[in-house]
């Protein structure tokens, strides 16, 4: 039998270590770890707490899709936990670092768990028997957990931990001063997993680079005494409110207030708690507006009555992709938005809370709420600051990692990258993007050492069982006492022996233990078993383990079936032993019935062309190409214009003052010089066929329009956006009316002209946030602030007025907003109903607007009126239809998942970055470009990908070519082929089974879930 390999191993680089340490295992760390591990690097994932998942695991729903947070996160956690090339180090901290990029040695301190991870079966008896209750920090101390606990039910690793700070064992006896009392967990643990003698371990880990993703902590509102957060139980933080909403939270998803468990009828959200406040943090925390809206919307959905939700805010900062739509929808759903910053909260009657506020009509109001949610901001935790000191990293004035706008994921120390909230407050998709970007950064530094540190697993060639009659082996697990204390396992064993095709039955104390696995392997061979049924805990956590053992013995892993007699039986019918035993028998009978019909399935290797195609030669496209090329992949960069550079050609400085043109020149030079990059300019895409790993694209190139056919494995779409050409405000009719790009040009080419201006108005949201284009263009507020500051530099006497709707200077951009106010830039808010008017009279330009403080119209002459014109999508209709990639109604491309797959398209092998995705800053485009390159590179590097065995297959003889499958497939996989029958590409099929169930000729089957395999279970039940 020739061995096959799970992973390839190739020779190592000279001295470069092909391993990476990721510190912090929230969503950013998890994403970075997965990207790296899948592309040939060994990853040490270091997490301070006992389980990975971070804050995202605590959230109920996520904006703007209202996805269940845990549902979308959990598969990634499970993948991390199982990955052959990710080593989890939980309860661990980085203590020291030596060496330099390519070869670091890091000292990691792992604290004792007091539970042997190898032995713990997560049955929970230790927690049940533990007499010590303490506040459950996962639920924000809204309820209790035990001193022996798991962080949350879906935790990875799903292993208990003993909280040394609270465990009675570790509390010295008052009289004797000795420790060692209680030990209840130890006594009751059926697996002998409790080990009080465990000591901490020190690891010295060699890695080539480090990615920091330690996350954030929420601002502690008790620092602001006027909120009385500690004293008023019905004043909660937004994170507490997430737990209140969560079905797995302290109140099982019932919307009640903590003080008296009463259902609130009125809830207020107070924005900017700890943010945009020079007393605490002057920056904007970027995410609070959106999460507050989400919480209000979800709370209204939760309440079976008409819940009044009011959000008190200064500026509503819904600047992200489709966020403005979400805000508008919330308004339609009746969420109230009150523009007012609340200073203090007073206690009303019966635990209610009194808010006093001035609204925009300058009226003083007093309103009572049943509950108040404080939208607390993000800040850097103290231990992250000290870690940064340990690693010798620079921090910015707000204590976040100092990064350069043009290298947004690089820290001040080469080889150490940062992603997620440590690099500034941000939401989940941006954290995920930065994580992939950081992985791309690591990947390009260490590309020569790919696959040098990865583990491989050799398995024997599978045995051909096709000619054999089914020989089923049944293994019934006691799970210690988890199953055996309720279900009579011996009875089930005896029963299983009577079932057809069953040749062997065995009872296991712990089926999953290492020694049992070894013993089962022997049994498979001795009894020539060719179908395996394990009656035990749950396939969710254990199927992969048993399948692994089958593979080790040369059995195809698809010849496995599990009867879930713990999670779906003994655990949920603890009082009904007899019924539970009967149910276990039923479940085993059903499993055996299906097992006898299971077929071995082959996972065919996916061939992958190693070339990348990048569409668009702007900042995003060039950065993506450069990174892919640095990762070692041949890259073809296609640009439709004559010159590279894109929209950035028309931008002169960033708000930080960086010279964009100098950067572009350097970037273009690097792209042109790179031996792995080929540039095609004036190139037009005319055909795009194929699928992940195997695309063929045709382009017409140059003035001669010669045809070029490119075979490639991945595609990165970076086709950019454009500035809206206003038709309003006399644009194009008066030379003094400019867009921001026009203004940039004037200031660059003839600064003396700009310096002579006496009064300049900026009008925000021109072409954005209106009926035609409901979304916010994100970058115009900072653009106006940037230009206003530049104008003030040119001429400090100049009167600069910014007319805005909401100032959306998110994150650290808030500093510039503050600076602009300090420099005397005037800001005046307008309502869209009372939009400013630009007129021309004898003297020149005149601007009329409603002053929102005076509530009076103001009319002033102006030397220039600068329109903050929207960023609108490029003309991509044809490209989208050729590539079959979706666009929003405004024409921006739609990523696979707004939250967790922000740079992937749902068609695998195609990636997205830059403003083709949505408007963004140059630094954000770079970050996203690196992310797309990281994802694309990870795909190309993983040359051992296989196609899942579980796919839909058409039996062509009976296909009526009716197109139903073509129409119903959510992934657009089935196609009618040249033989005029439906054909489903196995490499693309996701195995959902919709087509099989809808096929009117019943000629599609999903392997492993074939109709007879499913109905066998139904029939066996009766």
């Amino acid at each position, binding site marked *: 039998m020739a061995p096959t390999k799970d992973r390839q191993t190739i020779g190592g680089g000279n001295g470069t270590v092909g391993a990476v340490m990721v510190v912090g295992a929230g969503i950013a760390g998890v994403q970075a770890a997965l990207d790296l591990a899948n592309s040939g690097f060994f990853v040490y994932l270091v997490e301070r707490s006992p389980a990975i998942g971070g804050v995202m695991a605590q959230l109920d729903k996520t904006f703007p899709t209202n996805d269940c947070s845990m549902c979308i996160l959990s598969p990634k956690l499970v993948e991390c936990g199982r990955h052959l090339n990710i080593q989890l180090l939980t309860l661990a901290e980085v203590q020291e670092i030596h060496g330099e990029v390519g070869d670091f040695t890091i000292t990691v301190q792992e604290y004792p768990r007091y539970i042997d991870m190898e032995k713990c079966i997560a049955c929970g008896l230790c927690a049940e028997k533990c007499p010590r209750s303490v506040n459950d920090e996962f639920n924000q101390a809204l309820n209790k957990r035990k001193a022996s606990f798991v962080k949350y039910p*879906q935790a990875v690793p799903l292993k208990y931990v003993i909280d040394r700070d609270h465990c009675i064992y570790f509390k010295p006896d008052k009289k004797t001063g000795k420790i060692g009392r209680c030990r209840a967990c130890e006594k009751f643990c059926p697996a002998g997993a409790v080990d009080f003698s465990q000591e901490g371990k020190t690891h010295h880990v060699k890695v080539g680079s480090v990615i920091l993703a330690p996350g954030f902590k929420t601002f502690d509102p008790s620092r602001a005494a006027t909120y009385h957060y500690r004293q008023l139980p019905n004043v909660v933080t937004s994170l507490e409110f997430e737990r209140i909403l969560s079905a797995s939270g302290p109140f099982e998803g019932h919307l009640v207030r903590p003080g008296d468990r009463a259902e609130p009828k009125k809830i207020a959200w107070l924005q900017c708690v700890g943010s945009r406040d020079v007393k605490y943090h002057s920056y904007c925390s970027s995410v609070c507006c959106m999460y507050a809206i989400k919480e209000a919307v979800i709370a209204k959905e939760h309440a079976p009555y008409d819940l009044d939700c009011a959000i008190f805010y200064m500026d509503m900062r819904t600047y992200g992709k489709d966020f403005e739509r979400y805000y508008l929808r919330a308004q339609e759903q009746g969420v109230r938005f009150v523009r007012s910053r609340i200073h203090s909260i007073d206690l009303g009657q019966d635990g209610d809370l009194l808010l006093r506020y001035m609204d925009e009509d300058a009226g003083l109001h007093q309103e009572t709420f049943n509950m108040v949610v404080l939208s607390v901001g993000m800040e850097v935790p103290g231990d992250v600051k000290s870690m940064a000191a340990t690693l010798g990293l620079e921090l910015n004035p707000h204590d976040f990692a100092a990064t350069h706008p043009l290298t947004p994921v690089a820290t001040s120390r080469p080889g150490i990258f940062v992603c997620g909230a440590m690099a500034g407050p941000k939401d989940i998709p941006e954290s995920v993007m930065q994580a992939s970007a950081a992985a791309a950064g690591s990947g390009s530094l260490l590309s020569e050492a790919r696959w040098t540190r990865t583990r491989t697993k050799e398995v024997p060639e599978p045995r051909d069982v096709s000619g054999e009659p089914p020989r089923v082996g049944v293994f019934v697990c006691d799970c210690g006492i988890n199953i055996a204390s309720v279900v009579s396992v011996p009875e089930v064993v005896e029963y299983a022996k009577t079932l057809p095709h069953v040749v062997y039955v065995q009872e296991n104390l712990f089926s999953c233990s290492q020694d049992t696995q070894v013993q089962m392997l022997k049994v498979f061979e001795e009894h020539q078993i060719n179908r395996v049924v394990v009656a035990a805990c749950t396939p969710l956590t254990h199927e992969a383990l048993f399948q692994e053992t089958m593979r080790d013995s040369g059995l195809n892993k698809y010849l496995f079936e599990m009867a879930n007699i713990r999670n779906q039986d003994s655990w949920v019918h603890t009082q009904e032993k007899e019924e539970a035993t009967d149910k276990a028998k*039923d479940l085993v009978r059903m499993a055996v019935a299906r097992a006898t019909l299971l077929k071995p399935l082959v996972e065919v290797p996916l061939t992958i062309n190693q070339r990348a195609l990048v569409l668009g030669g702007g900042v995003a496209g060039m950065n993506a190409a450069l990174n892919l090329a640095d990762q070692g992949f041949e890259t073809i960069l296609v640009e439709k214009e004559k010159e590279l550079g894109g929209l950035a050609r028309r931008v002169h400085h960033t708000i930080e003052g960086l010279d964009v043109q100098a950067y572009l020149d350097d970037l273009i030079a690097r792209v042109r010089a790179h031996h792995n990059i080929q540039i095609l300019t004036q190139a037009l895409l005319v055909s795009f066929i194929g699928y992940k790993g195997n695309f063929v694209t045709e382009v017409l190139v140059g003035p001669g329009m010669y045809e070029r056919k490119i075979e490639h494995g991945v595609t990165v779409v970076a086709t950019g956006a454009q500035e809206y050409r206003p038709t309003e405000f006399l644009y194009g009719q008066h030379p003094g009316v400019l867009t921001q790009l026009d203004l940039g040009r004037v200031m660059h080419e003839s600064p003396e002209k700009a310096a002579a201006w006496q009064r300049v108005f900026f009008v925000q949201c021109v072409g954005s946030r209106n009926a035609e284009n409901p979304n916010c263009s994100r970058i115009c507020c900072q653009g106006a602030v940037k230009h206003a500051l530049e104008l003030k530099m040119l001429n400090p006497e100049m009167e600069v007025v910014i007319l805005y709707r909401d100032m959306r200077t998110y994150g650290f951009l808030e500093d510039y907003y503050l600076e602009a106010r300090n420099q005397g830039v005037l800001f005046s808010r307008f309502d869209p109903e009372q939009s400013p008017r630009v007129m021309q009279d004898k003297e020149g330009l005149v601007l009329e607007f409603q002053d929102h403080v005076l509530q009076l119209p103001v009319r002033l002459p102006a030397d220039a009126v600068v329109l903050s014109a929207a960023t609108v999508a490029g003309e991509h209709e044809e490209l989208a239809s050729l590539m079959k990639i979706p666009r929003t109604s405004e024409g921006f491309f739609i990523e696979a998942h707004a939250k967790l797959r922000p740079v992937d398209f749902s068609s695998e092998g195609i990636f997205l970055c830059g403003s083709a995705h949505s408007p963004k800053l140059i630094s954000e485009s770079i970050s996203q470009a690196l992310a797309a390159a990281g994802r694309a590179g990870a795909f190309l590097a993983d040359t051992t990908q296989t196609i899942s065995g579980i796919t839909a297959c058409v039996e062509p003889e009976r296909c009526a070519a009716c197109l139903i499958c073509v129409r119903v497939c959510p992934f657009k996989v089935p196609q009618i082929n040249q033989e005029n029958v439906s054909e489903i590409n196995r490499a693309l099929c996701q195995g959902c089974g919709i087509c099989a*169930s809808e096929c009117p000729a019943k000629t599609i089957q999903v392997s492993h879930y074939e109709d007879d395999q499913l109905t066998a279970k139904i029939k066996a039940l009766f």
Partner: protein
Amino acid sequence: MRLQYPTDIRIIQVPCTGKVDIIHLLTAFEEGADGVFVAGCLEGDCHFLEGNLHAKKRVQRVKEILDKVGLGVGRLEMYNLSAGMGPRFAEIAREMDQRIRELGPSPIRKAKASLPKAETEMRV
């Protein structure tokens, strides 16, 4: 969470409710199920994007058939819940169990005079 629910429920795992065929549902009733419930992801949360929406349509059609053949619409239901909603699952199980008890054993099962058995259920 180990929330207790009635013992007469058997779960059949499918990759997605999109795979639950009308014919599977009818087979369950033909075999003698007293009740069936399909548990899919929350609408809009389907891992396969639209599987649960198809399942909803199919459940609706089978309900119409069941009504016409004299079994009534109450023995079949589609529920949407997420993997994080354990309490809701137990609640649904109890709700369905209670409902089926009120409806009594399936007339098909009585007609077939087979051994008394329990409900079946399909879920992802």
